[in-house]
């Protein structure tokens, strides 16, 4: 039997691959339609709104104004303060939560008895609504009757009124503490899942070779749970970029815009000041920053995978 009877001709292959390509496109149409309707269309619509002067109270007078909203924001001091506050807030919170989360996850991984109870207990802060955490930490840092000033008084014997929520960067620090308390458990749970899933062989081999605990952690544990770290960091970064509740309750972005964040300012512009067009423009800047951040983190994730495998 001639070979060409077993194999399709080049023309046939070309034809069938073309057919497959059409079929595959056809098969993903429903998913694509969902994405277009639920994500792309609203994004395009809201982007078009960001190019208008839409005022919530006078929707009928909406006019196209090009990129004027964006230009105004770039010349707005409060926008830049909110932007840098958010970047600092994100950077510090993600890194501290990462270090603390990894440390606690390692400790919990070594626990042999009662891990279930500890795991449940450690997740408790995540169960509180951010608004409640905000009120709790606002009270902790209240200058008159707050826990922190009273604790300092008990320790030093001197009654000092430290207005934690007033002075920058103390107010940012107070908000950060609330955020870290509330969200570190998320990191712990993800890292613990990563640690549990690790193979034991590399550690056994390293132990035979005499590698210390630190070296095992540095050169085996850390690279192997790299994907977990990046996923957790991406999720937390996106969460932190949207920080609103805690800031709103603890300082309201003030005083004098000292602790303003991107979303508290966006809300102020779009809803309380009725400048919906401007608020939407600000949201788009935030989305662009978040995209850049996620792309960077995913590149790092890909790099870490290459290093491991």
């Amino acid at each position, binding site marked *: 039997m001639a070979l060409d009877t077993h194999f399709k001709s080049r023309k046939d292959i070309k034809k069938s691959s073309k057919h497959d390509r059409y079929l595959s496109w056809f098969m993903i149409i429903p998913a694509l339609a969902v994405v277009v309707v639920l994500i792309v269309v609203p994004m395009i619509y809201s982007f078009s709104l960001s190019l208008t*002067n839409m*005022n*919530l*109270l*006078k*929707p009928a*007078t909406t006019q196209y104004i090009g990129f004027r909203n964006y230009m105004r924001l770039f010349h707005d001091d*409060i926008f830049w303060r909110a932007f840098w506050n958010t970047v600092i807030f994100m950077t510090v919170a993600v890194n501290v939560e990462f270090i603390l989360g990894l440390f606690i996850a390692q400790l919990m991984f070594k626990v042999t008895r009662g891990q279930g109870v500890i795991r449940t207990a450690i997740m408790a802060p995540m169960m509180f609504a951010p608004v409640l955490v905000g009120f709790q930490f606002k009270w902790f840092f*209240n*200058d*008159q*009757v707050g826990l922190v000033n009273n604790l300092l008084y008990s320790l030093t014997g001197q*009654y000092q*009124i430290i*207005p934690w*929520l*007033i002075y920058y960067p103390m107010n940012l620090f107070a908000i950060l503490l609330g955020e870290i308390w509330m969200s570190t458990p998320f990191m712990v749970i993800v890292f613990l899942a990563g640690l549990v899933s690790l193979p034991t062989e590399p550690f056994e081999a390293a132990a035979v070779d005499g590698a210390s605990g630190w070296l095992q952690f540095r050169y085996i544990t850390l690279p192997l749970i790299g994907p977990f770290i990046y996923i957790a960091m991406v999720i937390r970064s996106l969460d932190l970029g949207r920080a609103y509740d805690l800031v709103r309750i603890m*300082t*309201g972005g*003030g*005083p*004098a*815009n000292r602790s303003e964040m991107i979303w508290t300012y966006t809300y*102020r512009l779009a*809803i*309380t*000041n*009725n*400048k*919906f067009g401007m608020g939407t423009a600000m949201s788009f800047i935030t989305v662009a920053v978040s995209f850049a951040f996620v792309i960077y983190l995913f590149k790092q994730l890909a790099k870490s995978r290459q290093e491991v495998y």
Partner: protein
Amino acid sequence: MKKILLIGIFVLLVLSTSTVFSLELGRFDGVTLKACFIGGGDYEKIYEKFIPEFEKLTGAKVEIVYKGNGFDIDKKMKVDFAAGTVDYDVCWDHTSFFSQYIDFLEPLEGYFTEEELKDFSPKVIQYCQKNGHLLQIPRHADISSLHYRTDIFNDPEIKKAYQEKFGKELKVPETWDEFKDIALFLSKPPEIYGTQFAGKEEALSGRFWDVLMAHGGKIIDENFKPAFNGPEGIKAATMLRDLYQAGAMPPGMVNFLWDDVAGNWVNGTIAMYTEWYGWYSYFQNPESSKVAGKFDIARQPKGDAGIHSGWAGAHCFSVTKASKNKEAAVAFVKYITSYEPQLFEAQIGYIPVRNSVFEAIIKEAEQSTDPLAKKRFELMKLQINEDFTPPPIVAEWIPISNVLYPKLQAIMLGDISVEDGLNKAAQEVEAIMEEAGYYD
């Protein structure tokens, strides 16, 4: 005596009942009115008690489709009006907010006779109107009085020291200048602060407005240009800055809202301050308050213009233009703002806006064992009729406030000078008004 009292109460009840039932509401069988109301706490008691009564009287059904706090309703209504998704006939409204919604509210002047409106405080009704239209009917109001510690003001040693320093007797301040001097004098931080104000958001802009109006100043002038950066505004902001910088107000004040200032007061760390009437039972409860029985109230101080401060607001009801049952909606508003529901709310603790309700509640208070009961209602009546002055009736008040209060905070914290802070805020306010088309 008891008999006379009982007869008096009976007559009052009959009169009040007859006032309600003398309303010509009409029958609206089969009509379902949808409502968007303020909720939470004591606000809802009136709905529970009087909506079933209204339904019985008129045959209409009332369905509350949304309940929330004032700021949440404001947000919802703005979005609903903009998107054209209003599905309610009657809505909550407020003197500070209603000018934002004027294009979407049914003018009510055609539905109410002069006779029906004459019992309301004319000052309050004046601030329910815009562009010649009556757009809301008041439910209850709020205004602040000066709260001061009697144990401090009557302390012989403090009185003597004050006499020696100022050469005059220590008494309750009648002007803002006296207020400032006394606040500075009484301060012994951290044990006692001379005074405090709520220090952020509309609460701070409003308190600034309180002092500004007393000096004869305005937030915006008749041409809608910012006017708060004139000499009156500079004097008002300077007082706030001086008191804060001198430590006569708590350092955390610029982050305080209403519950924080009330908390400080009951904690006994404040000598005097201006406060809304609504907290009274909390302040007089010895279990929650260190100042129970140790304070008195007075009319707010006057400023250089001889005007008593009177930043005030009134919760109201409006009918939406989108309503398909306007007659029934108006009937509901008439009923819910009539004598009996207002008396009921006054007995809970809200400030009525009908003078007949004031008469009744003052009479009731005469029998109270609380020494401040009668004085409170008499002072409320005086203030609601004479001092009641909401912020400017423009849709841009909240955006103006959002520009103003961070600048006031910056002034108090020393980040910026009084003149520069107010001028910068004025520039931004002018831009807001220009963008809104006031100067076209």
